[in-house]
């Protein structure tokens, strides 16, 4: 029986006067891929950013409710945010490697968290790049600037960078929307390999992608969680009419 690694209970989020997330309750199983779909502006990215508290960076945001990571509410006063973000990593919509070498990008996280030993860093860089299917392409180009890589390579580099700090959960915010179909396919393959070790939550506006890669899917609409179930059931026999409307393209 798969454990739930993240349990969200009655999560509400306000941007100033805007009630962006309304009473969300959902439990994410570990070591699997969960997709979050929904039309633009429905709050899926906002929800994702609650899970690693990246919403803290936005001024004027108010969050109430409970988001538990392995049993502990991450919005508690005594939570160590740095540890949280070590355990819950994020890959962004537009690849955002640092303007540094490939090596320094991947080593950035470990260095911050105190690893200074050259040998250990080398090992971490190699492992992470292998896990994101970049090692063969880049093993002789580690000192090259990350800005020279193609869009797909940059995104895989960002994944490697994320993996290097050793998270348990990887949040992906529309990671392929800025990439071409071939690069997208590579990343989707990557995700299948990664789910053996990591829990992946992916926000996507591409329904076909959600159907392809995920075990469970959540449908958001206007800040509310409409339906959450096995992907097969969501796409073939949705329970809620709103879900059905979205899936069949009647709107959104």
């Amino acid at each position, binding site marked *: 029986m798969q454990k739930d690694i993240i349990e969200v209970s009655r999560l509400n989020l306000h941007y100033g006067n805007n009630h962006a997330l309304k009473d969300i309750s959902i439990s994410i199983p570990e070591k699997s891929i969960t997709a979050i779909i929904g039309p633009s502006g429905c709050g899926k990215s906002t929800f994702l950013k609650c899970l690693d508290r990246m919403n803290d960076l936005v001024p004027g945001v108010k969050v109430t409710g409970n988001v538990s990571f392995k049993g502990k509410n991450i919005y508690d006063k005594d939570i*160590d945010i*740095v*540890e949280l973000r070590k355990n819950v990593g994020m890959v962004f919509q537009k690849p955002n490697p640092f303007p540094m070498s490939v090596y320094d990008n991947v080593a950035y996280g470990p260095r911050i968290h*105190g690893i200074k030993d050259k040998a250990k860093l080398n090992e971490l860089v190699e492992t992470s790049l292998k896990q994101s299917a970049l090692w063969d392409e880049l093993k002789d180009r580690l000192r090259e600037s990350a800005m020279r890589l193609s869009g797909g390579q940059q995104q895989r580099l960002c994944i490697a960078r994320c993996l290097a700090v050793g998270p348990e959960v990887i949040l992906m915010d529309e990671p392929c929307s800025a990439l071409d179909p071939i690069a997208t396919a590579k990343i989707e393959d990557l995700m299948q390999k990664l789910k053996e070790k990591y829990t992946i939550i992916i926000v996507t506006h591409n329904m076909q992608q959600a159907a392809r890669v995920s075990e469970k899917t959540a449908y958001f609409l206007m800040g509310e969680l409409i339906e959450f179930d096995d992907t097969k059931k969501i796409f073939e026999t949705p329970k809620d009419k709103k879900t059905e409307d979205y899936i069949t393209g009647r709107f959104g």
Partner: protein
Amino acid sequence: MELRRSVEEKTFIIITAAAAAITSLLLILIIGKIALEALPALNLYFLTTAEVDTPGYGQAIANAVVGTICLSLLSVAFAVPLSLGTAIYLKKYAKDNVLTRSVRFMIDILSGMPSIVLGVFGMLFIVIYLKPITGGLSLLSGALAMAILILPVIERSAEEAIGTVPRELEEGSIALGGKKWTTIRRITIPYALSGIMTGIILGLGRSAEESAIVVLTAGYSQFYPAVEVLQNSKMPFGAQLGPFQEPVGTLAISVYHMFQFPNIVPRANGFAAALVLILLVMVINLSARVILWRWKIG
């Protein structure tokens, strides 16, 4: 997260906040102290009488206030046509090539030129060599030298303002058959006007506060600048045209007198002149900001 990291984080918040606090408070401290020292001397007599009508030095500054304003306005009057014309040419007519880039480099050099260099140039060339025209140490000399100083200030603001005019607006005019100058006159300049005005006002403020140039080119006078014709056999036609060919009093020099003659100029008076000068420059600069702010909003 280990203790070292959280301690480091908290430490630097405090350090940077302290730095910012010091920097922001400096203004209040300095102006406050000057205002305090100036208080005894700030009265209507001091502000509205010309120094010539008072005994000794530094007992009144009305002539200096008027002189400062006249000098600044005249400097701007000289500088604006040249800098505006240059900005329009560089931005609208010239191609981006080595020539225009070197022109911009030269303007940058001028903008960084130490004022004393402009001052001695003004003194030797404008005041001495050009004495028949300028009347030596005079309002005219000061304004000419000052105009060179503020040229780059106005030019750069103008260039930036012109650069913000949206291409579509101009292309719309050209597409309707308008010639280049018509487009510039009717579309570009009106749109960029606020930015240009800001530059002009900044130039005004700059010339009000400048002292090195003024010392060496404008001389000093205890009289108000006055429209008059004086007899002077050393000048062409034997005439010296006031106020242009006569020396002019400025606030910056009034303040400088406090340094030059510390035993004659009362301490409070010197500070009072300083305060009036600060307020004058600040009012000028603030109005530039207000115009810029309203332009950015509208």
